[in-house]
């Protein structure tokens, strides 16, 4: 197979996913588009219901009860939407692996950690002998910083702390040397102190495997810490994307500005937090035009009718895109969140 090295590892193009419910059609993802290069860490941020997780599950072709109505997902030049189920299964877990939010429920409670990693290995390499898989599993556990890996190998998930379980999950995810790791809120279920460790570990795992990472989170701090680029999603659409520093220092979408302003900060004397007014729109009947207009301080008449498309902004050195008609006004007024 010839690999098109000019094309990014993953190309999500105009992806739209709908769910049919009793109340109507929910447009969970509505025209999401972004790319991930080899070895790159891309953070996808957005509120609950912004379509981040559905986008991730679409990449794996595992959207339960939802339908992809538009768009394509190309991985290493192959359209994942047209692959037969068997080839898709061969990609899942081997080339694209996932780290789950809650490591307690994502592990089978009555099977030892070691066996679960061994199974993950042998699922994709049927010829691997049990002892080879065992050695590799212990090696992986050691790699993710599991003290006394050989003893831990024989333990059950309930004998692990939350952080250790997440380490085991990461070991399992990188077991088959994936080229794309999807981490869905990998630190949300953990204590703050453990979060930092797991983030460090994600970095290590990323360096070890050279895997590109799609980091789904609502935590801008996590993105700032880990990601090279950030994709901001709102109401099933990408509203802004660019490299982390550019987006965080010079945001060009009012939603991103709102997200950054709503963060509590320790380095500045702020009397109160500034939440974004209003709430995310219903995806059953998204507002016409720009989905953010009901909450946007910059909204004009054409925001209510014309849907803004992603366009390049800034000086063009780093590709920074936003979907806002009035992005330049944000540029004119230096935002307070710089830093």
């Amino acid at each position, binding site marked *: 197979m010839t690999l098109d090295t000019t094309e990014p590892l993953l190309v999500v193009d105009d992806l739209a996913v709908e769910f049919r419910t009793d109340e109507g059609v929910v447009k969970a993802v509505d025209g999401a588009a972004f790319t991930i290069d080899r070895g790159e860490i891309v953070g996808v941020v957005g509120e609950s219901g912004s379509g981040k997780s559905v986008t991730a599950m679409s990449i794996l072709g595992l959207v339960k009860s939802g339908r992809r109505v538009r768009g394509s997902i190309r991985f290493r030049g192959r359209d994942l939407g047209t692959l037969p189920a068997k080839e898709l299964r061969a990609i*899942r*877990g081997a080339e694209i692996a996932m780290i789950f939010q809650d490591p307690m429920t994502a592990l*089978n409670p009555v099977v030892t950690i070691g066996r679960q990693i061994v199974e993950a290995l042998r699922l994709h390499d049927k010829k691997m002998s049990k002892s080879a898989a065992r050695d590799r599993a212990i090696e992986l556990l050691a790699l993710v910083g599991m003290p006394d890996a050989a003893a831990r190998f024989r333990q059950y998930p309930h004998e692990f702390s939350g952080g250790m379980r997440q380490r085991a999950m990461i070991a399992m995810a990188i077991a088959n040397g994936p080229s794309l790791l999807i981490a869905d809120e990998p630190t949300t279920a953990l204590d703050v102190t453990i979060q930092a460790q797991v983030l460090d570990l994600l970095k290590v795992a990323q360096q070890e495997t050279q895997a590109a990472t799609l980091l789904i989170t609502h935590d801008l701090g996590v993105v700032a810490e880990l990601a090279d680029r950030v994709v901001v999603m709102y109401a099933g659409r990408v509203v802004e994307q660019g490299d982390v520093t550019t987006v965080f220092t010079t945001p060009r979408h009012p939603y991103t500005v709102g997200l950054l302003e709503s963060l509590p900060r320790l380095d500045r004397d702020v009397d109160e937090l500034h939440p974004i007014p209003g709430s995310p729109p219903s995806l059953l009947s998204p507002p016409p035009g720009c989905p953010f207009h009901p909450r946007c301080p910059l909204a004009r008449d054409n925001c209510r009718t014309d849907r803004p498309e992603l366009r390049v902004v800034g000086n063009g050195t780093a590709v920074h895109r936003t979907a806002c008609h009035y992005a330049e006004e944000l540029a004119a007024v230096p935002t307070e969140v710089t830093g």
Partner: protein
Amino acid sequence: MSDLRPSLDTPEVAAAEEVVATETTAAVRSQRRSPLGMAARRFRRNKIAVGGGVFLLLILLLAVFAPLIAQQSPTAVDLGAIRRAPSGEHWLGTDASGRDVFARLVYAARVSLLVGIFAALLAVLLGTVVGAVAGLFGGWLDTVLMRTADMMLSFPSIVILIVLAGILGPSIPILIVSIAITTWPTTARLVRGVTLAVREREYLHAARVAGASRGWMLRKHIVPAAMGQIVVVGTISVAGAILAEAVLSFLGLGVQPPQASWGNMLNDAQSLTVIQSMPWLWLPPGLAIAATVLAVNFVGDGLRDAVDPRQSGRS
């Protein structure tokens, strides 16, 4: 570990218990408990279940070593000595054809256990596959399979058994198949229930994400999750199958003389005179059936409590 042996009444349980045995020793060594190890501990604490198991082991030994235990042939007809009362020569007397009742009782254990174990195994195997497939695939396949199961359950099974035995003719393989056909729906429903519960678990989703096929998920997650309950139902099914064999053989539709089974031994005892004056003809096989079925049920209850302590009747 010897007190674990008793429930070697089905190869399935035997296999499970061997695992239990090895896992317990391993668990003791590492001061760690596996789910199987804990279940084995709970089972061993249950005196009634262990007693039932010991009894079953004795019956099993009796069946296996029948030629050594019974000095007489179970089929040797002696028309000069029919319906003789128990004596030194014939410990349990002789039947209407002058055959030694003790020898027949011992050899009949072979037939009863064989039919009981294999019918239960077949039913459990069929039920597990049907239940897991129905639960995992859902949709019309689920509907078709489960409505079939409902239909089987809504017929009086004895009628089906009689009809099947009548059509296919009486023989041990047919007996096993027909008993299995009438009992698989119980396992199917159980396994389907477990499958539906496990299917929604996050770890199954994780398995799917890791590229697992449905077959793999069945083998690695669903069947193991249901295994405890499958073993329990399988054990209880053995009791049902032994009873079914006895009923059919009693009615003349099961094991055919001269081969002995506990059921067709009772067949000889259909007249009032026999019941009133020749208890050696019907009491031993009757007691054997009752005691064996009871012992199997004790073991089954013990296994259920061991596998799922929440269902235990005791506090």
